[in-house]
């Protein structure tokens, strides 16, 4: 092959391939993740989750309350990063990253609830969500990840049958 063509071809071919992978693999991963999230949310729908700072009146005082946590770090795929970069030119809402944030938050809350359930609690109050920045997305070209931690106090409701 003409060596003069090789450079531009590689330069164009690699991003195209990565975009294609983002479109196929990334989209599938996201779809499956969202489906799993919905299923797990359905399973845990019996739990009462609030961000109240004090315990609701129906708290069972005989069961010790405890702190529960959930963490999730979700990476963007190449397509999302690409779309976000294009969006940056025109401005406006970055839909590709929006779903990323949503997935990370839901995952973190679900993990927290699952931990609470594991320890035998049926409610969580004073839930707080926090983001962290391991990847330092701003400093790195093209990489984006969302890190969310959720934590709250698990307790038992007095009226609820376990």
């Amino acid at each position: 092959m003409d060596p003069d063509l090789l450079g531009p071809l590689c330069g164009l071919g690699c991003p195209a391939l990565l975009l294609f992978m983002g479109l196929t693999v990334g989209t599938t991963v996201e779809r499956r993740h969202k489906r799993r999230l919905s299923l797990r949310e359905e399973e845990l729908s019996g739990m009462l989750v609030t961000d109240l700072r004090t315990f609701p009146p129906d708290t069972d005082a005989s069961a010790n309350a405890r702190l529960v946590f959930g963490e999730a770090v979700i990476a963007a795929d190449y397509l999302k990063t690409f779309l976000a970069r294009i969006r940056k030119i025109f401005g406006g809402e970055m839909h590709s990253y929006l779903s990323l944030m949503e997935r990370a938050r839901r995952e973190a809350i679900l993990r927290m609830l699952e931990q609470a359930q594991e320890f035998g609690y049926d409610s969580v109050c004073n839930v707080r969500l926090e983001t962290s920045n391991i990847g330092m997305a701003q400093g790195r070209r093209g990489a984006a990840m969302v890190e969310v931690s959720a934590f709250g106090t698990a307790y038992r409701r007095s009226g609820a049958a376990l």
Partner: protein
Amino acid sequence: MIVVNTETIPGMQITQVKGIVQGNTVRTKHLGRDLAAGFKNLMGGELRGYTELLIEARRQALERMLSQAEQLGANAVVNVRFSTSAVTQGAAELYAYGTAVVCQPDAAPV
């Protein structure tokens, strides 16, 4: 040791406040995890290495906070808060703080 992020503990009465206790940590994963994360950034999906990193960091910060509370002679920590910051790429700083208290079961059952 009872640890909650609310100001009160159900069924317990706070009899003595010992003061603020804290614990922090800056942790990182090995190079392989960072490389794997870079690769994952092309495909999307969860970065398990970094999720683990957050869990480990939280556990360590909490442990340090609790050992301080123990030294003060407290049997519970209330109003626990966490704070994270970005020190450098690939590392997580986690800071846990709360108020160490001494509590005892309520005399009259609620």
